[in-house]
């Protein structure tokens, strides 16, 4: 993996420390419901990372990753509830079923590329809801189904709702960290290099002995599996599954998050989810302003974070085409130049 320059790496360490501090601080200040919402946001990183693997590392645009999140959730719910398996095995089972689903969708990806593949995945995203209704055994049909099994906190966490929420928080973060580390290793490995070679130049990758079919399918399966894991963790948090939660727009927002964060970078997925929260908070604050005639109408729009995200995606293409993670302080692009200018002024003062 490409290493950041030394000055930048210091910043990276600072970022990691801040992130860890935030993660430790969060469960201490929030009540059970808030903590559950925080956890929900954190597991979105996995789904976004799934999109990132397919699109950023594999070069296959996927507009249908909410489908895999949904399959993962349905799978996990089925394993843990109907088959009575323990949570960890069910989660793995859910992720594997999403990966298998991904395999099926990857088959067209072998032949078509670019926008046409994007179209096929979008079609899957649109078809998923009506399709899920036809399998009430897994999806609970139109109204969804609740899951009886619960992830109860072990003794050291104490008892009650807050203890459960804290344990789920720790559990989900642990799963996320393990998954992200695994993905990091895969990307640095032989398979990961094959993946990226395929994205950059298919012909030369084939010349160097990369098995195109296998690599492309494996990439898509891995990305679908990650999204499925995110779906499984959703079941841990909210013991209820329904196709209602996976409309086509959810897939598009996942894609937008991955692009905004930065494709082809692990941190990009974290950035993307973080910035989505920042947008949401800023929108909440601005929405309360009601006394400015035209502007407050505009601020009301900020309430729906999809709108902000759509506009953000377009704006980003103008400003930083590579996504937030591609910003290198003091380098060529516009934001970098701005940062360098700020730093010069700071030094002069």
């Amino acid at each position: 993996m490409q290493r950041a320059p030394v000055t930048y790496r210091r910043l990276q360490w600072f970022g990691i420390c801040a992130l860890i501090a935030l993660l430790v601080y969060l469960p201490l200040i929030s009540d059970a419901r808030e903590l559950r919402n925080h956890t929900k946001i954190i597991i979105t990183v996995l789904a976004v990372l799934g999109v990132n693997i397919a699109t950023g590392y594999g070069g296959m645009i996927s507009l249908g990753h909410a489908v895999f999140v949904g399959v993962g959730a349905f799978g996990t719910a089925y394993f843990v509830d109907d088959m009575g398996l323990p949570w960890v095995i069910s989660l793995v089972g859910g992720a594997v079923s999403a990966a298998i689903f991904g395999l099926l969708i990857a088959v067209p990806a072998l032949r078509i590329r670019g926008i046409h593949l994007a179209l096929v995945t979008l079609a899957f995203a649109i078809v998923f809801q009506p399709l899920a209704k036809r399998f009430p055994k897994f999806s609970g049909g139109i109204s969804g189904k609740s899951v009886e099994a619960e992830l109860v906190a072990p003794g050291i966490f104490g008892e009650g709702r807050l203890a459960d929420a804290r344990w789920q928080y720790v559990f989900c973060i642990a799963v996320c960290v393990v998954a992200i580390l695994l993905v990091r290793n895969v990307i640095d490995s032989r398979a990961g290099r094959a993946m990226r070679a395929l994205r950059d130049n298919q012909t030369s990758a084939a010349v160097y002995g990369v098995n195109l079919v296998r690599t492309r399918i494996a990439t898509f399966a891995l990305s679908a599996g990650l999204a499925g894991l995110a779906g499984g963790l959703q079941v841990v948090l909210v013991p209820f599954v329904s196709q209602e939660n996976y409309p086509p727009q959810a897939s598009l927002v996942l894609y937008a998050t991955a692009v905004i964060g930065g494709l082809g970078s692990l941190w990009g997925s974290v950035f993307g989810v973080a910035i989505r929260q920042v947008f949401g908070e800023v929108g909440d604050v601005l929405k309360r302003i009601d006394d400015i005639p035209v502007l407050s109408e505009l601020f009301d729009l900020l309430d729906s974070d999809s709108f902000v995200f759509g506009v953000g995606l377009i704006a980003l293409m103008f400003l930083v085409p590579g996504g937030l993670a591609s910003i290198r302080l003091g380098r060529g692009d516009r934001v970098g130049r701005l940062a360098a200018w700020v730093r010069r002024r700071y030094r002069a003062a």
Partner: protein
Amino acid sequence: MDWVLLLQRIFDALFNSAIYSSLALALVIVFRSTGMLNFAQGEMATFGGFVGFVLLSGPTQRLKGGGVAGWLPGVPWPVWLAIIGAVVFGMLAGATVERTLIRPFERAPEMALVNVTIGLLIATNALMTQWWGSGARAFPSVFPVGADDHVGILGARLRYSTIGVWAVLIILMVLLLLMMQKTKIGLAFRAISINRSAAELQGVPVGRTLMYGWALAGGMGALAAGLSANSTLLHSNMMLRVLVFAFAAATLADWTVPRVQLWAGSSSVCRKPWCRPTYLSSVSN
């Protein structure tokens, strides 16, 4: 086998196929000139439909976008005029989008354009949900849609609205072909779609022609939304599914030949999800 039922299903589906065809046409116009798929085409069309809705219901408190409609004389307008207004709006919107959002990425990689159109899709969809709510709204029809407004053919009913939609579509096709064959803009358009850089070197105004293409596509989409909103009801997600059918129709025919889109649209008749199972169950009986 129940032939009357089969014929009836085909007649029913003909209506939707006309809608798919017009959206497919819009997609193909953009694809031929710019070589890109406009993922936001469906949402732009739905937005046009909502503009038509505002025009025909006038400025009321219920409609957030209704305030602007009050500036126009004589609002509420009759349905046909409201749809024409929506088409004009769609054309302006298409041209604006091309100028402001697409042109800057002329030389950027394909991915940037995909991202921009998807951003536009997400933003427009959220905007419509925010302004007009996520519920469905009734939209009057231009054509008579009463219980008796149909022609009986071999025992099956061909509705006037279906005939009307196809008439509009065929007139549109003829106009489009005439424009492509006989006018200077059409010539420029054909030149660009065959070889863009050669056309540019010959002095064809590429930018302006592309803008006209987008305007045409935008207007066509708004028309599709205005004509279909009576049967599907007007809601913010109505075109997302149609978009995929239109993509399928355009792919099934040929992305490069607009004339064929009409047939592609009609061949998607048998893809109607509800058409096949019902018909098959009547076969097995």
